[in-house]
């Protein structure tokens, strides 16, 4: 007869069962921990439950390799205090203050400002830089509406630039007095796309890669090691963030009333929690 486990051993068994019930698999990586993966005191690290990326279910067919899943879990998007964010972007504090007072400020996730100034996301900086870029031609208010309303488009462009090394541009075009379009796509395909469209009154393109590059160069000068700006475009969390944003935008469009414009909603508690888990502080 096998000896009964000790009190500590029983606790460990219960904890393991609870983890199994939650669908988490635990992987011992004490021997060879991949860089960037945080390991608890016991030497175990949580990885995502087995997920089929082809069928979107939990079947075992065409499963991603465990190392790939661990990499995706471990990827964190950077956050910095507002002061550092302004230094990285070269944006004047007074300009930001004025934008906030007038309701023209922008941030990631279609929000008007980051949830906590002490933990601004690097992607919030990209939102501000796109806003500044568009403000050269558009009114700052119109530019802020574009940046907030099409967060999914420019975030996708940023994700593709960062993780797929693809030259992607974010563009908005004015077809007529009241009709605009916004989108992102491969830079080399934009001239052909424009050539096949009816003549546009205005076309504004934003080189997000240039803004990111400028931020990276400033960070190098300041001695700050920048981490990831945003999750990869195929990361399940990124996909769910975008889906939630699009759903929200569609529901708002149905209730849109130009005479009673409301400020944008803050991200939902669920979304904030998800971002919080995916963010890491750089400074």
């Amino acid at each position, binding site marked *: 007869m096998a000896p009964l486990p000790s009190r500590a051993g029983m606790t460990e068994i219960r904890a393991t069962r609870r983890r199994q019930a939650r669908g988490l698999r635990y992987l011992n990586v004490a021997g060879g921990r991949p860089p960037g993966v945080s390991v608890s005191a016991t030497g175990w690290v949580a990885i995502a439950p087995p997920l089929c990326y082809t069928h979107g279910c939990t079947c075992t067919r065409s499963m991603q390799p465990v190392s790939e899943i661990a990499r995706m879990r471990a990827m964190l998007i950077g956050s910095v205090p507002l002061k550092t964010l302004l230094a990285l972007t070269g944006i004047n504090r007074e300009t930001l203050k004025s934008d906030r007072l007038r309701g023209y400020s922008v941030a990631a996730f279609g929000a008007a400002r980051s949830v906590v100034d002490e933990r601004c996301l690097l992607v919030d900086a990209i939102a501000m830089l796109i806003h500044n870029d568009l403000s050269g031609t558009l009114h700052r208010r119109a530019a802020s509406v574009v940046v907030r309303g099409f967060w999914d488009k420019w975030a996708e462009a940023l994700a593709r630039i960062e993780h797929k090394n693809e030259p992607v541009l974010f563009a908005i075009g004015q077809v007529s007095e009241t009709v605009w379009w916004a989108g992102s796509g491969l*830079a080399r395909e934009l001239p052909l796309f424009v050539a096949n469209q009816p003549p546009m009154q205005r076309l504004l393109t934003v080189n997000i890669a240039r803004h990111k590059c400028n931020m990276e160069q400033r960070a190098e000068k300041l001695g700050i090691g920048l981490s990831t700006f945003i999750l990869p475009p195929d990361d399940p969390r990124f996909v769910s963030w975008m889906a939630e944003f699009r759903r929200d935008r569609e529901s708002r469009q149905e209730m849109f009333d130009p005479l009673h414009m409301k400020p944008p909603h803050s991200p939902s508690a669920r979304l904030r929690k998800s971002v919080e888990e995916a963010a890491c502080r750089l400074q």
Partner: protein
Amino acid sequence: MSSAITERIADICDLARLNTELVVMARRRRRQEAEQINEYLLSLEFQQRAEALEPRVRAELAQGRPVLLPEIADALGVPPDIALACWLSQFGATIRDVVMERK
């Protein structure tokens, strides 16, 4: 390292932006405007302006310096896309050799 890759991507994007800008200019032009430009390209005034500008542009291109397209277009009296397509291209200049603004 990461910055170098991003810079390369940004350069490709800049080139595509410029190309798109020129396409938009051409798409906006009405038939009547195009005919006026065609007539002007055959005029003596255009020939004189082009001759005066040619040595400077050739020198800049030979040194591998990008040419400021709006400035050239202004000197020739034609829109920037026409300046590139109908005049600069005869010296072997492509979209990679021109810029819309100095950095």
